[in-house]
């Protein structure tokens, strides 16, 4: 299957090569290891058979009504997004190394960088990284390269636990001292602790906004305090929220990263997603990953090309700013189409709608006996709900009723045994919220 070569063509080719059979082409391989047989693999199957089989696996996942966020958000995806992104000219193209044959993809990347800069409030952006967690890790690596003499990294405990785990894995063999910044009882990063712990040994300060618990942080104060000590401030953020929130770049962040999934990319059990990465012009030559630039062709016409490649692995090898090669270009394209379709008004409306629905849900839940919001701090579309019973038990019962009732926090924060992290987006109607609340009450 998928091999077009007929037997007679095969013979013609063998003859041109001057061998009798294909096996002869493998003579450099030790005979005892050649053609081992693949007994553990399935037999070949036709398209219909494979379709049925994989569809059955897809249906083996129970669909749940989703009230969970925690880094992956159930947003509606306009039809045009993937209808355009999956055009074969985009989806089946290689990395645009031959600029003249890839002007389409290159212009789209240039536009992506422009949109990301505007959204995050940064001066420059790259053409994507794997996901939000690895983007945060790359930002830390960039900060450590920028400050080779500083070895401390201050991180807010409001950062997504999986992002923290990821960046600690990335930096496992670098000498880094990780210093946690606790949250106040209001759910935001303790600024007094930050000021106490900042010193000239700190390479960077990491903040998430809105933080993992949904609370909005005082980004500007964190960034200013950091820069007063010469530390780089790195803020991880949520793109859809930026329809309403002041972008971290504008608040003084030196690097802004984000999980871009909310911009038209399906939940798809966690990937592929999209790492956004923006920073200051001054750090341009330390940026990881690909960058596309506008230039001219030999007749002076506007053209686009991958540029500043001297930072990258295929040129700089062990001295590259990152090892990243293949990234998430098609997801970057989808995110650009999403932003182009929404425009400034659409993105703002989407953010306002999320804000409204989440606050509506929070108010409804607060009225249920025994439930209360853990934090009174401003939030966007996600919040922590304290329950009168262990959250795990409630979560299980709700699942039996067809709901994904947020995310239990105790696997990461053992003290939060009774807490659920809940999220409301535009995909859950007010009616569904009512049903959810009623069911939650019954499940007590």
């Amino acid at each position, binding site marked *: *299957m*998928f091999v*077009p*070569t007929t037997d007679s063509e095969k013979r013609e080719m063998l003859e041109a*090569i001057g061998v009798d059979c294909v096996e002869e082409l493998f003579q*450099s*391989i030790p005979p005892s290891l050649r053609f*081992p047989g*693949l007994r*553990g*693999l399935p037999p070949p199957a036709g398209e219909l058979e494979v379709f049925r089989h*994989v*569809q059955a696996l897809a249906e*083996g*996942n129970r*669909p749940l009504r989703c009230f969970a966020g925690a880094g992956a958000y159930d947003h509606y995806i*306009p039809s045009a997004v993937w209808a*355009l992104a999956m055009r074969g000219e*985009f*989806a*089946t193209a290689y990395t*645009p190394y031959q*600029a*003249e*044959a890839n002007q389409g993809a290159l*212009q*789209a990347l240039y*536009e992506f960088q422009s949109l990301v800069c*505007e*959204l995050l409030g940064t001066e420059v952006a790259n053409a*994507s990284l794997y996901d939000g967690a*690895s983007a945060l890790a790359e930002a830390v690596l960039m900060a450590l390269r920028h400050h080779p003499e500083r070895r401390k990294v201050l991180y807010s405990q409001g950062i997504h636990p999986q992002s923290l785990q990821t960046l600690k*894995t990335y930096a496992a*063999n670098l000498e880094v001292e990780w210093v946690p910044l606790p949250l106040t009882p209001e759910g935001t990063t303790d600024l007094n602790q930050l000021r106490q712990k900042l010193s000239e040994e700190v390479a960077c300060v990491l903040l998430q906004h809105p933080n993992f618990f949904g609370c*909005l942080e005082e980004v*500007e104060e964190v960034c200013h305090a950091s820069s007063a000590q010469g530390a780089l401030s790195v803020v991880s953020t949520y793109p859809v929220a930026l*329809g309403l929130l002041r972008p971290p770049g504008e608040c003084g962040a030196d690097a802004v990263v984000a999980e871009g999934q909310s911009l038209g990319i*399906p939940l798809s*059990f966690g990937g*592929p997603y999209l790492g956004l990465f923006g920073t200051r012009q001054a750090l341009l030559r330390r940026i990881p990953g690909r960058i596309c630039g*506008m*230039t*001219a062709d030999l*007749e002076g*016409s*506007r053209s686009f*090309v991958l*540029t500043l490649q001297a930072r990258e692995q295929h040129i*700089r090898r*062990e001295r590259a700013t990152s*090892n990243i*090669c*293949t990234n998430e270009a098609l*997801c970057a*394209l989808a995110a650009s189409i999403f*932003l*182009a379709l929404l*425009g400034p008004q659409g*993105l703002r409306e989407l953010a306002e709608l999320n*804000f409204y629905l989440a606050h509506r849900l929070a108010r409804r839940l607060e009225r249920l006996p025994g439930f209360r919001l853990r934090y009174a701090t401003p939030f966007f579309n996600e919040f922590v709900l304290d329950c009168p019973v262990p959250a795990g038990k409630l979560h299980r019962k709700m699942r039996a009723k067809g709901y994904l009732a947020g995310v239990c926090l105790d696997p990461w924060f053992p003290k939060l045994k009774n807490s659920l992290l809940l999220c409301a987006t535009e995909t859950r109607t007010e009616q569904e919220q009512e049903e959810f609340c009623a069911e939650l009450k019954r499940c007590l």
Partner: protein
Amino acid sequence: MPLRAEPLLSERSVRGRRGVRYPRPARLPADHELPAHLRRRALRLPELSELDVVRHYTRLSQKNFGVDTHFIPLGSCTMKYNPKLNDRLSFLPGFQNLHPLTTQEALQGILELFFELEKWLCELCGMDAFTLQPAAGAHGELAGILIARAYHRSRKESARVEVLIPDSAHGTNPASAALGGFTVIPIRSNTRGRVDLEDFKSKLGPRTALVMLTVPNTLGLFEDEILEIARLGHEAGALLYLDGANLNALMGILKPGELGFDLLHLNLHKTFSIPHGGGGPGGGPLGVRKSLEDFLPMPRVVREKGAYRLRENSKKTIGRIRSFFGNVGALVRAYAYIRSLGGTGLRQVSETAVLHANYLRVRLRKEFPSFVDEPCMHECVLQAVGPSWNGVKTQDVAKRLLDFGFYAPTIYFPLIVPEALMIEPTETESKQTLDEFIEAMRQIAQEAQSCPERLRAAPHHTHVRRVDEVQAARKPNLRWGRGEGGGGL
């Protein structure tokens, strides 16, 4: 006929124009809910109708070469046909709408798919365990590097900090090794394009943590002293890593585990037919031997009492390398690909890939000699050198190929080959396409003699002429609104 230049989104923008609309909420955020200093003041995104957007991206797509439209003979990239069924399957609602923190009882279908896929990859590669999490090849390499480091540490051999890498290797190998905190020691290639055994021996020692090889190597040649290299490496206490970018030559032909490799990564966007996407998303599963299994990143798919589950903890794990599970869309496609072809089909894939590469190599021998003149595997490295070329460079050959409707091969790589053209035709191209490509290459060789200036000025028939890369790097223009291109915003 070349299309006219397509304006930037920002230049198409008209104030007040709308694409997608959302219902207005009953209430907007109050000041106590969202204080003024946290609010966004301006959002300068382009304003377009849905048709504006559709036309813009459709036109851009028409200025792009993909496998669906063109032959892409890029060496080490395996630009094979991407079956449409696999795309369709990855978009099934049962996968697409699945939140990554869904509880495991509701995930049995997808976990079964992962479990089976890991098993198949183990069989194909002769490995004992796989992680499907890495998002791309370099990400898999990083995981492998971190595992090697953790493994040596667990044996109290922290002094092993060197990684031996041939000078013909992909750039990601040394970059990943450095990111993992290792020192990179390059190994020379010999005149046969293989690892220079003497140089290898002289650099191997008690500080060697890992030997990273590509098989077949980036010259498309089987590393024929691999068994000896593996024996020496293991004797010296090092682990052996395979960059599996070139697995398209090996399926059903040999199992890398049987050559002595302890770890390897695969590129799903190469061998396993998932579309390359213009630079991702990809997939870079990492396979290991039993003795390294406990070091794999979390989470892992396990089967217990007839049910699948994700295990989040293990004592020795290197930790998490990304959020959530992996590039699931890629994994569904790779699963469907293997399920379609089966073991016999995969062997036919590799055999045909090798047949096609040798056919091109032999038919182009006169005009473009091979760097090493012997049977190749799935790709061949040719050169445009000699007096007949009149100063025409490989770069010019590549650009001229675009005029003939072919994407260019990988050029100037591997770094050890002057004026290299690295050509990988894959098994999915027809003999007619290969013959047309051969014709174009021969005509280019002829043009080098008759009108070399035509080559130096190529391409002539693409949407833009040769692009000025020097200016792009010297005066970086990386976004609109700074200088040119602010348009209607």
